[in-house]
């Protein structure tokens, strides 16, 4: 089976959680052929992961190129540019461009309308030169006019408006890539990388799987939070429209934790289209470790980062030391923010923990790190489905963590001496109480707790289980794609848009109208 797997700023160029997930998936399902559509910012990247033999890499750089054809193989670039004359642009592109701009300028975007617009743009890009069309005077004048007559955008600075307009071309570049031909399209985010997969669904009826590791819209809104209001409206509308379009067109969504599923439901996805597939870890990498000798030790494995809220862990540990004077805290991981690392060291000094807290730095051997501790602490204020929690579980170590993201579903209802090991974020007292409960328990109790967590991890969070789940999704969807083709409704025109969800034929009809 041929799978088109799209990524954005991750595999195989950037180290990280999503890249690791893709790498595991392509290695774990060698009987499938994967075509990786990798959206990157520019073509100048090292390969951080070596793709196996069943992978073909199709990078889609958004910047670092003058013409799309430099890196997006399309034949007859000269002829396509020649064909894209101003009359053709006015007749075949401008109506859909107007439609698209209206979507984006409105306070609340309509994903259905956006889908029509994007699919028409993709169809246009099959035969014509998208850059020429977007560079046409009428295209710009229309966008400008819409902005000028909008009470919000008229007061936006010309620089951010221009930035948005020019960025829009880059964001639409994935539509200029050849439409993938595959059995199943699988997008690793509800983001720009989903666009080629969505076009494949419109064009060929290819079923679409959508996996969210983090909530893309959430991340984009956070990144825009400090921007001027007008800029935020333009970009946020675009991102939200793309996200909701991806949600709408996905045949199944496979978030990596139920927490993400909650967000997806809030954003309008029907629960029956969501199937949580937790990230898995290869148990062979993390074996059960014997309880270490020595003083009671709390461990932390992760980035020294504000989102990890290490300061709260330090405050909690200070309270633990009041009860267990010989306790130790060891922290492994790189510091991504030097100022925040400074704050952590200041906190250590203020709390008088200089003899008992040790910053070990980055490590390649997480298993040994877990093995040298009695309990693992995680005080994050924001998480998705953290690998570190599952790895600690496989090492048979109790974990005290904040109940954010998918942490609670990873740990389950675990307690020590009646105290829940899942606590509220930003509460050093609660965290300290849970840590004391674990450290003051007997070795047998801790071993039992660790063993139960390991069993839970081996049952629910192994790599093999993850592979099997995805394989099942692919196999289920592939024959389903054929059924969906037969069940498509009649195509519709621009002014006859109905609220038909996942109407591939309607998209195709809209595309046909664009070029008739």
């Amino acid at each position, binding site marked *: 089976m041929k799978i088109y797997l799209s990524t954005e700023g991750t595999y195989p160029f950037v180290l990280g959680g999503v890249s690791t997930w893709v790498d595991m998936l392509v290695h774990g399902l060698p009987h499938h052929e994967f075509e990786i559509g990798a959206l990157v910012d520019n073509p100048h*990247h*090292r390969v951080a992961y070596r793709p196996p033999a069943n992978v073909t890499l199709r990078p889609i750089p958004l910047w670092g190129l003058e013409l799309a054809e430099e890196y997006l193989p399309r034949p007859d670039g000269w002829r396509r540019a020649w064909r894209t004359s101003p009359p053709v642009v006015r007749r075949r592109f401008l109506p859909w461009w107007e439609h698209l701009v209206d979507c984006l300028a409105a306070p609340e975007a309509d994903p259905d309308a956006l889908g029509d617009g994007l699919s028409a743009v993709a169809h246009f890009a099959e035969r014509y030169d998208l850059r020429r069309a977007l560079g046409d005077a009428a295209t710009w004048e229309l966008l*400008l006019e819409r902005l000028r007559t909008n009470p919000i955008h008229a007061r936006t600075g010309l620089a951010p408006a221009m930035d948005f307009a020019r960025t829009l071309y880059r964001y639409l570049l994935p539509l200029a890539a050849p439409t993938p031909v595959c059995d199943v399209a699988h997008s690793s985010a509800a983001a720009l990388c989903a666009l080629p997969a969505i076009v494949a669904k419109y064009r060929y009826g290819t079923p679409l799987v959508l996996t969210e590791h983090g909530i893309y819209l959430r991340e984009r809104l956070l990144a825009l939070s400090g921007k001027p*209001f007008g800029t935020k409206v333009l970009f946020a509308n675009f991102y939200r429209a793309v996200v909701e379009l991806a949600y709408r067109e996905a045949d199944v969504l496979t978030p990596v934790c139920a927490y993400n599923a909650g967000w997806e439901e809030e954003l309008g996805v029907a629960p029956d289209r969501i199937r949580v597939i937790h990230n898995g870890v290869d148990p062979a990498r993390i074996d059960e470790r014997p309880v270490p000798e020595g003083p009671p030790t709390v461990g932390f494995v992760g980035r020294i980062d504000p989102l990890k809220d290490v300061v709260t862990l330090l405050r909690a540990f200070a309270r633990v030391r009041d009860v267990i004077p010989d306790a130790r805290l060891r922290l492994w991981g790189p510091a991504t923010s030097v100022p925040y690392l400074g704050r952590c060291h200041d906190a250590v000094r203020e709390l008088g923990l200089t003899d008992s807290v040790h910053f070990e730095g980055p490590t390649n051997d997480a298993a040994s790190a877990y093995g040298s501790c009695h309990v693992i602490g995680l005080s994050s204020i924001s998480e998705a489905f953290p690998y570190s929690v599952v790895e600690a579980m496989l090492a048979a170590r109790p974990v005290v963590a904040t109940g954010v993201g998918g942490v609670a579903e990873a740990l389950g209802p675990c307690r020590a001496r009646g105290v829940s090991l899942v606590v*509220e974020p930003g509460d050093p007292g609660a965290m300290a109480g849970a840590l004391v409960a674990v450290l003051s328990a007997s070795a047998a109790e801790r071993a039992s707790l660790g063993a139960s967590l390991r069993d839970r991890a081996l049952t629910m969070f192994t790599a093999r289980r993850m592979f099997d789940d995805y394989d099942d999704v692919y196999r289920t969807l592939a024959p389903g794609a054929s059924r969906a083709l037969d069940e498509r409704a009649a195509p519709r025109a621009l002014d006859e848009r109905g609220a038909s969800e996942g109407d591939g034929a309607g998209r195709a009809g809209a595309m046909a109208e664009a070029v008739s």
Partner: protein
Amino acid sequence: MSTTMPRVSEGGELGLHMAARTVVGHCAAPLNPLEVAVVLETCGYTAGRARALGTDGLMELAQRVFDLMPLYSAAMSLPEPIEVGARPRPPGPADFGRGLAYSSPWLVSLATMLIAGVSFWSSNVALPSIANAVTLATAVALLVTGPFIQAFGRRASFYIGLGDQGMVVRITRWTLELGLAATGLACLVLYLVRNDVLGLGTPATARLGLAAGIAIAALQIGLASFYVRRAFLSMGVIVVGGATVLIWMVSHAGSYVDPTVLIVWQIRVVAVMAAVCWVASAWWLLRVTASAPAPLWRPSGSALLRAVTPYGLYGLAFFTIVVAPQLVSGGLVEGRYSFNPPFAMTSGVALVVLVAILAQTVATTEHLLSRQFPGWLGHFTVGQIDEFRGEVRRYWLGQLAVLAGLSVVSGLAVVEGAPRLGSRFVVLRDLTSHPGLLAACTVGYLLLGAGIFSCQLLFALSAPMRPLVAVWSGCVALVVASIAAAPAGPTVCAAAGLVAGAGVFAAVAVTLAHRAFAHADLTYYRTL
């Protein structure tokens, strides 16, 4: 980011207000409750905490907090303050001085000619056969290398901006080296046609012409890397070194400089300079410093070709306008060529007017996209688009006025001043005999300068098609005018072609540039 959380015990309305203040601390004007929910979650508000505050969950909490935002966020109730940037400063004397650096090889060549009476590739040789061969070879070299150098300049600048030295090397191979090979082939064809087929000149001068063409092409191409890297100091060292050798040789030749010895030395010096430029480019200017590999994906050759073709075609037509009058002055319209010393001398002197114009061109274009446009765009809002266009148009007209002033000063200096120098410098002695020709050539090159100025601005704005239209219009006008003036003789023919070609080039280029600047927003937007 603050990680101070309200305690669970602070529930109810107070908790909502504290949550609102927390949100405002991160985001002054949230778009909608969804954005509020995202900020709250980042600040540690879980579903449990939301329920403790009396809501059903995070989304309901976000809705209630969003309703409170106007109380805490001034940005929500008042029009958003517009941050207006300062107006960018126009180019000044320092920019002009840096622009002069671009003409340094030419200035050194002029100085050498005044000091020693000879120069690198134009001289007062006494032998017509040598002059014929070298002039024709120079014309071929400029015509063939022009397109490749323009293509290289465009694409190499692009990759230098991306910091991709590997691709810069690759582009160098595919443009400059290919250009040198093409020029060598063209010069070889010229040699074979003149020497073996037509039997023109002498065997020795024919070989000289071939060597001159290759050496001049190699030097032109070798200097291209220095221009792209703005390595003017090192370029100056190389050029001054070559000039020093020539001046030394001439000064030690006594009262008679054997023209054959002179041209041989000139060509060899040019070849050595070219070799030094190439080696310096490969070992220093274009060296790959980091251990990073080349980009995994090379761009498609046909797409690259499509991207640089307009620049290459511009180079071809531009150098046609530059060299065609020289050939026409030798009788090209009549199907022959014989070096025309008066035209060569007067046109060579008139070219000096381009020094100031090129410096002003560089000063104006260098920061157009990095300083001028960002400054203008940051100074206006979307609703003030007409004011923005007016500002840019005023800037453009101001630069045109500066250009016009420079042109007048340069033109007068050449037309009035150069003949007066004839008594001092032997090489300029005959200028007094051709005042009309000098004036015509000066006007022609001033017009050419105006066209260059406009086209370089358009290139800086990534609009290559307009300069292409302008320069090829000039080419057509040159051909038509030359043919029409043929009965008046080669010299008049050449002057008419130069003035007409440069005039049409300038008129079209200035008009198209004016339209580009009149709709500066569209022009800038198109640099996608």
